[in-house]
């Protein structure tokens, strides 16, 4: 092996390493909510579980009834978010403690689904609302894998399935109306507004009634922050919020990916070196083939 080839192979090893090893890359910057971000604030102490918001959501979004859950097919009674339910009220009960909880898309500040989506069918569009574009979706369901809240739903029973998720009634916002769920709520348990105002309002309530709440606004920092915020009188884990981490879902993966693929330099370098090594080898072809196999042990 001559020095030239050795240095080529060294270059090969280096560029291969660059292609797969997460180098000490600059950590990906944490994001903040867009300037004109809007969202929801839901307060468990105000919710009476009337499900007016569930009905209003179905109407506003033209969603079919889900009669599988209860009442022998007579009632539209979804049990959880599903392909015909973008918004749901669920009950948590344990001993004397109970609480309702509203579930819909959290409109993450740094969403896993958006990081996942190959063609950007899911994107944070106007007001930081995460919406879905049917023309760019091939139905791969990576968004479902990536969502820590299991929000995007897939129409499993359809031959042309769509991804179904709350888009914060962006069609109503365009008409100057607010989302259906917050509009109909008789107790103002869920309110719609500008994200920073909602966050301030949440903190105001916490300061005013520290006895009423768990001392935390869920979504302020969780998973990098969400544009839907929660106040609760029971611990958030009990309401089904499994993850308390502040790390945005895409952070680790994108830090690794960016370190490797920055400017696509490492793959190009690897390609060039591979080509050069193989070209040289081809020229010398035959010389090594002639070696007796005994040399290999």
């Amino acid at each position, binding site marked *: 092996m001559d020095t030239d080839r050795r240095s080529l192979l060294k270059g090969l090893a280096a560029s291969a390493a660059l292609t*797969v090893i997460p180098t000490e890359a600059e950590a990906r910057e944490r994001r903040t909510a867009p300037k004109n971000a809007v969202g929801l604030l839901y307060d468990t102490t105000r919710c009476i579980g009337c499900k007016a918001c569930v009905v209003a959501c179905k109407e506003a979004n033209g969603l079919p009834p889900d009669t599988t859950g209860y009442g022998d097919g007579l009632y539209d009674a979804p049990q959880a978010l599903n392909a015909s339910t973008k918004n749901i009220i669920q009950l948590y009960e344990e001993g004397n403690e109970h609480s309702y909880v509203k579930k819909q898309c959290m409109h993450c500040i740094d969403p896993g689904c958006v990081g996942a989506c190959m063609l*950007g069918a899911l994107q944070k569009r106007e007001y930081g609302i995460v919406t879905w574009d049917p023309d760019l979706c091939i139905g791969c369901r990576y968004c479902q894998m990536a969502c820590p809240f299991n929000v995007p739903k897939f129409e*499993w029973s359809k031959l042309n399935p769509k991804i179904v998720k709350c888009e914060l009634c962006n069609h109503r916002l365009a008409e100057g109306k607010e989302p259906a769920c917050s509009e109909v709520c008789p107790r103002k348990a869920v309110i719609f507004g500008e994200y920073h105002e909602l966050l301030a309002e949440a903190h105001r309530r916490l300061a005013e009634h520290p006895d009423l709440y768990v001392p935390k606004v869920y979504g302020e920092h969780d998973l990098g922050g969400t544009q839907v915020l929660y106040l609760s009188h029971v611990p958030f884990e009990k309401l089904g919020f*499994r*993850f308390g981490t502040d790390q945005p879902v895409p952070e680790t993966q994108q830090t690794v990916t960016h370190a490797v693929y920055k400017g696509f330099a490492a793959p190009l370098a690897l390609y060039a070196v591979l080509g050069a090594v193989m070209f040289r080898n081809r020229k010398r072809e035959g010389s*090594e083939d002639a070696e007796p196999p005994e040399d290999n042990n």
Partner: protein
Amino acid sequence: MQPQAQPIGGTLLNRPYKIILALATLGIALIVWRFAAGLGATTALSDGYPWGLWIAFDVVTGTALACGGYAMAILVYVFNKGRYHPLVRPAVLTSALGYSIAGLSVVIDVGRPWYIWRVPLYFWHWNLNSALLEVALCIMSYVFVLWIELSPAFLERWSAAGEGWLARTARKISPWIDKSLVWILALGVLLPTMHQSSLGSLIVLTGPKLNLLWNTAFLPLLFLISCLAMGYAAVVLESALSNTAFGRPMETRLLAKLEQVAAWGMLAFVLLRLADLAWRGQLALALRADHYAVLFWLENLLMLSPFWAAFGRRENPGRLFRGAMFLVLGGALFRFDTYLVAFNPGPGWHYFPSVQEIFVTLGLIALEIAIYIALVRRFPILGALPTRPPVEVDHQEERKWLNAS
């Protein structure tokens, strides 16, 4: 001199082949059903487990099993080990088939496959953060690259087939392929390096839903090492199997070398994995009495188990075969676990593949084997028999083992 590759000939439609064809036909029928009835009616997939057997096995595990072509290309074309050349073509054929089947599985699995063409073509919409986009584009390109890598096997035969249009075209194309082959072969090493590591980063995006025994920023490297080791081990398995099936002598000595490479690779894999786990302060997870820890150690032990055998003094075909099988099983289990078992969408969600999913997967494997057999019988893919058998092969022992199994 290397013996040239030759078609092995023989009757195609024998009894075992008919059984394989029947399985493949059943799989294809179920695929038709899936497109007629939808994913919900034919799979056990759910909103909690949107990816099941077809992704975790056919794509994530299957492409690693199909890394023989990649692994051999590194050995032969980068490190210039010409003596392994006879093993390249069969490995590339298995890779081409494995990757094509993986691609087909994706088409079956996605809900809106009629839009797939938009993924490579709508480049102005590309989300460059998406690891899946990278995997998709790389695998699409690599399938083409593999078939071009294999094309000399077809062109050689067609060129020799008289004066028909096929022969003339083959003779016209051959020099072109020959000239550009270096750059195609380089792509054949670059693309798997990229997408096999990206298969690791891809699942890192599931973040908190992925068990910490598997979820690490080193998954890309772990996936790359495991696919290479599995690639070498798969070449050993395939050679042993096809030589047994077609009654040819084993290239025991070469295969033993390959298995050593694979065993070293898996040792590096396990050490890196344990070091990373310790560095992340999660070693305690491996010592718990739950199914995660059991699977974690099972993966590691399977990967390490052939180590003693791979360095045995005699190249015993039976040991060689078992060792390769354990390596492949360990690597496969690791990848399958990472995508399915380690993924926990939360309480209330369950997944076990439906009968249809299982038979589609089996059918696709059968289809792969059927095409493999048909091609090696008709085209120059397997190395020709050496004029005299290598002295170091102990045929008696080989036969004893073959009869026993």
